[in-house]
């Protein structure tokens, strides 16, 4: 049995179902990312876990103990969780020290003990010099670290993070990403991390849960999600992919029309209706001349856009059917706009998607 369990969790706002029967088990000590576009229900799920919202259906259990269910939701303050908010939510009328000490005071700790623990966590987050400042006097990155320190000092069982890095600039974001992972590895609490940034999820998470329109599309390790997407949405959202649609021939090929046949070595074919075939941009091979072996898994088209990206070139090729394919090539493949090119879609990289 997992440490944190969501089963059939549902939350509705009027006609809109923000979270739709989400079932998920999270083992103790894991860092889990809820990943998805805005409005996919990830923040609502997090707020349900925190107890700020009451579910309309389903339940949440921690360590086998039910903490949320319709009509029986335990208050947030009784869950032994901590949360880091998008706005940091530092109290402007308290110094950094007081902000961090707040949770410990509420736990009835003695003053010297509080001081010891706050000093230790401020040291760990490199904030010792700022203890007597007010939040308004700190930079965004410093405020973020205070918010981290305040959440960690109470040694929660579960740590919740709601898009914690979205207000930081790019450099700082990268740094804090590793900082969060480092602190997680040091303290090993169970962490649920909400983000819409896939590289943030890739670098920090043990387990990624991709959400879309209130449902879980796929849950798995970063490698699972990237290498073995199970739906068109996941393939597209994580890492970007070309999607071609066609009919399954009953064996291992998909007929995309106009003589384009794609053999897929992985994935699941759809018996009825279209099967989608996904292939990553950088897996497509681009040739200026018609190769001898052209046939299955080869298509031709016109270059409609080419951009130079330093180490790579990014091509947009329009196929005869009107569909487009994006491909990333080494920088020495230099073909002008308007030229006809041949694309090879190696079968080991073509993945059939039934959904």
């Amino acid at each position, binding site marked *: 049995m997992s440490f944190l369990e969501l089963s059939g969790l549902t939350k509705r706002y009027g006609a809109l179902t923000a979270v739709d029967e989400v079932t998920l088990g999270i083992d103790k000590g894991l860092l889990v990312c809820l990943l998805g576009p805005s409005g996919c229900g990830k923040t609502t799920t997090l707020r349900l876990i925190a*107890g700020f919202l009451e579910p309309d259906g389903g339940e949440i259990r921690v360590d086998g103990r039910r903490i949320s269910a319709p009509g029986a939701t335990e208050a947030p303050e009784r869950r032994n969780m901590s949360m880091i908010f998008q706005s940091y939510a530092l109290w*402007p009328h308290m110094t950094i020290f007081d902000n961090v000490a707040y949770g410990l005071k*509420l736990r009835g700790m003695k003053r010297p003990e509080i001081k010891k623990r706050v000093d230790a966590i401020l040291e760990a987050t490199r904030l010792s010099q700022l203890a007597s400042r*007010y939040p308004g006097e700190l930079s965004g990155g410093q405020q973020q670290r205070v918010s981290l320190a305040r959440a960690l000092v109470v040694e929660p069982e579960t740590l919740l993070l709601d898009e914690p890095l979205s207000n930081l600039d790019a450099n700082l974001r990268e740094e804090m990403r590793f900082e969060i992972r480092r602190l997680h590895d040091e303290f090993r609490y169970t962490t649920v991390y909400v983000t819409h940034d896939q590289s943030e999820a890739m670098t920090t998470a043990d387990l990624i849960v991709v959400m879309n329109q209130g449902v879980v599309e796929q849950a798995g390790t970063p490698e699972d999600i990237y290498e073995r997407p199970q739906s068109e949405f996941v393939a597209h959202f994580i890492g970007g992919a070309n999607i071609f649609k066609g009919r399954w021939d009953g064996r291992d090929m998909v007929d995309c029309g106009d003589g384009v046949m794609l053999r897929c070595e992985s994935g699941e074919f759809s018996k009825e209706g279209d099967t989608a075939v996904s292939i990553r941009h950088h897996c497509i091979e681009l040739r200026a001349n018609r190769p001898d072996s052209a046939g299955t898994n080869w298509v031709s088209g016109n270059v409609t856009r080419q951009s130079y990206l330093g180490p790579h070139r990014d091509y947009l090729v329009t196929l005869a059917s009107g569909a487009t394919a994006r491909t990333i090539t080494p920088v020495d493949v230099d073909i002008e706009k308007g030229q006809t090119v041949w694309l090879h879609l190696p079968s080991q990289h073509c993945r059939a998607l039934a959904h």
Partner: protein
Amino acid sequence: MKSASDGQAAAIDRRPRLRFDLFKPTFFVLAAGLIVLIALPLAWLVYYSVVDPNGVFTLGNYITLFTDSRMLQPYLRSIGMSISVGILCAVVATPLAWLVSRTDFPGQRVVRALVMASFVTPPFLGAIAWEILAAPNSGLINEIYRYLSGAPRADHLLNIYTMTGLIFVIACYTFPYVFTLVANGLDRVPSDLEDASAILGGKMATTLRHITIPLVLPAMLAGTLVAMLQTLTVFGAPAILALPAGFDVVTTKIWSMFQYPPHLELAAATSMPLLVITVFLLQGKSWILGRKGYTVLGGKSGVPRITRLRKWKPLAIAFAVIVLSLTVVLPCLALIKTAITHRVSDVLTLHNLTLEHFKFVFVEYSATRLAMWNTFLLGILSATVGTAIALMAAYMVSRNTVRGSRLLGLLATAPIAIPNIVLGVGFFLSYSQPALRLYGTLWILLLCFITIGMPAAYQQMSAAFHGIHTELEEASRILGASRLGTLRRITAPLLRTSVIATWCFVFVGTIRELSAAILLTTANTKLISVMIYNLNESDDLGAISVLGLLLLVVSFAIIILANNLPGLGRTPKRQAA
């Protein structure tokens, strides 16, 4: 293990319900209280307007209202007066606001402070001050004129007891509405809009005409509508200036129907159109301010561009000096002079100085002492109760604690559409019934003042709650504080400044109220404002001046206090170590 977790779950089942139960009763009590405060007076008002003195249904009151010229004329006069005041305010206040906000005019802070001072002055006090200055016989300006020109006793330069005089006096105390809205608007018009015009070749006058003025036009119109609304519903100034001149406006007409023999039904019917006009004017105002395309007024880019006045500077200064002398300086000096000399017409010499009026007001005359006690007691009570209700209502609405809590917001802001004098009529009708007789006690005044102060108090508290991100409270909850603990440790300290400011606002509004109070006070429940009005009828200007100055001093002290509270914003000032 299993039984332990079941026990836990059962305990959880119970606890949250107990917690939420705390908010439900509060919600119902608040909602019921607000409904009684607002709906009851209005219901009685509507009822009285459609019955005859015997309680039989009739439309006769309305027919009288719209056919009898003695009823219709005051209405038309009031409307004409309010349009004139609106235009006058716009014409005077807009250039003044522009000078203060967008030019290198010297002493901008002084101008803003003096405009604020005229904002705080109750119009009835201003009317009395102008009576002291420009009454045809005893007015100081006329005395000086006769002394200088040697004109005969019967001659006079100015006569304040005229429609023109009345319009002038009301405008003196309503132009700040236009000024404030326009100045705030101009403060926020981003300079790039003007720079963009300048770079395209627009001269200063062109830019002003085509860009700046159109941008502040909505603010000016909205301010004008508010000024018109104030004029239409004001009682004090017309009662002091129009009645001696022998004409009525609608508010004085309503008041006269409460004099013996009373015509309460007609008074109720007369109040109804005022209510309707108020709703329309407010609707017009929010329509003008809410229109798209003018939202740049909220934009923030760069400092406002400052126009150099150059050779026009002396003219601008003269303009400001005249406006502010007429509205603030002269009336205030007149009050001070009257307070410290025996008679109004006495020349100001050392020999003529006296403290007799102060002695009279503070020591000898028991009625004024009672009025002062009543006024400040009611001020403190209604500010405290009103702020508390507004605080609770705003909390419940902004934190969405109970289903339907938004209703509280609607109820709390509803009285804004009820002119004070109409509310006064409604309260009189509601609480002079044998079943629930509060007329003659301070309670009726307290309830009425709470209602009058509620919209502004609620709006301020609501804005304050919106300024506190809910995540600040959630952060406290998740770290282990209960809802009430969070309220005490986080929300309350962050709100303290706004609460005190709101309290001050309601207090100042209450102690200067006359339009509703005039209908609700009796001999035992006199207030300073009503006292001033009564003393004016007996021509006791010395005592009036003392009371008036007392009101002004207290109001200013409170406002200065409220403005100098230590801020608790995002960047609090650090305590010097």
